[in-house]
């Protein structure tokens, strides 16, 4: 009656819950191990958000909050595919992104960084993957910004991604980084990821995705948990 279960979260790919170099994890990570759970219908299902979820400008962050003129900064295209671990495209799944503006400032009222807000830029967007699992955003390249984790700490430029996939088991929130950013080796959030998995967080410059005379392109594929081939125990 039910579908196949999902492969577990791959803890050789994900960062640990407690990573002391990222100080906020110290009091926000469980001290007890996660309790194993055999997936039930509750975990094999999840919210469904299709194309009807979207407003017409949701995927274009250079336009979706424009008031008087274009936002300041370097226009970029961010595009890629959402796949499962078996390489199958994940169709019709919602991606939500949020980011700082070109000066490294978030519109979030909690952000106290002394860098200018851009009245024409919100920094939030969303889109839904097509039949090949492909998504595409137009946005502004975010700036680096300082934070209080340690002396002279700066976050590398990044875009936050949130995805659902087919169930709550495939839920993922991650961050996309830019190739060659010298701050990545110094960033405890990026570095918390196991060494062999870090490259999967870095987008690649793509001439194919670059629009002539308009914007540089960056490619970033995302892999969510895939289905086991064995049927679920009941």
């Amino acid at each position, binding site marked *: 009656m039910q579908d196949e279960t999902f492969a*577990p979260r791959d803890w050789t790919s994900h*960062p640990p819950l407690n990573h002391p170099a990222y100080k906020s994890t110290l009091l926000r990570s*469980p001290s*007890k191990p996660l309790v194993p759970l055999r997936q039930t219908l509750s975990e094999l299902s999840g919210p469904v958000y299709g194309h009807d979820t979207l407003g017409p400008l949701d995927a274009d962050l250079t336009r979706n909050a424009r008031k008087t003129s274009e936002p300041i900064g370097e226009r970029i295209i961010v595009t890629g595919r959402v796949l499962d671990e078996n390489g199958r495209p994940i169709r019709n799944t919602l991606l939500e992104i949020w980011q700082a503006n070109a000066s490294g400032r978030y519109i979030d009222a909690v952000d106290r960084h002394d860098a200018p807000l851009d009245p024409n830029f*919100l920094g939030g967007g969303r889109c839904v993957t097509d039949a090949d699992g492909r998504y595409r955003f137009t946005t502004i390249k975010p700036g680096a910004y300082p934070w209080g984790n340690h002396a002279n700490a700066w976050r590398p430029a990044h875009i936050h991604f949130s995805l659902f996939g087919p169930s709550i088991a495939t*839920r993922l929130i991650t961050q996309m980084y830019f190739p060659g950013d010298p701050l990545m080796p110094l960033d405890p959030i990026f570095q918390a990821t196991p060494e062999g998995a870090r490259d999967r967080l870095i987008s690649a410059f793509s001439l194919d995705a670059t629009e002539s005379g308009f914007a540089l392109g960056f490619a970033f594929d995302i892999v969510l948990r895939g289905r086991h081939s064995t049927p679920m125990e009941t």
Partner: protein
Amino acid sequence: MAFRQTPSQTVGPFFSFGLAPEQYGYAFRSIAGATLIDNGTPGSHIRVLGRVFDGEGQPMSDALIEIWQADAEGRYAHPADPRCSNTAFKGFGRTGTGTDFEKRFIFDTVMPGAVAGQAPHINVIVFARGMLNHLYTRLYFEDQAEANAHDPVLQSVQSERRGTLLARRDGATAPTTYRFDVRLQGEGETVFFDV
């Protein structure tokens, strides 16, 4: 499994305008919020509220809580459920803890029906700055003792920790309200599942 999972990263402190813009007052539509029902939603309307505490017992104002639940008949609005809900009840809620003066999350929803051999429950996902991975837990209802006693997931948890998964009746006024506090670490640490 030829492709490897994309690593998780923290939601960070600045998700409000992206993930819950209407709640925080930004001019961008939210896909989901803290109210899962309208007056016509079938079932028993309930309120579920609580706070998220860190390892020093401090309530957190920058957590993001998502809930996923069945409708009053125990049906999920998803194709994996053969009894797929045909009501307007979507079953998904999302809210941050940064707009309530007591740092609570407050969901208005329906009492979920029992799902295939399980006690009524709400699936809860917790995100926050300082959490490199989201955590899954489940909310069960204290006053469903008989169903809880036969729930395979709840019964798989050590008896002394089961209470962390029970939402308790909070006050006697309408709407029927349940309190479910989440403790990330330490005394009374909530059970989190490796889903």
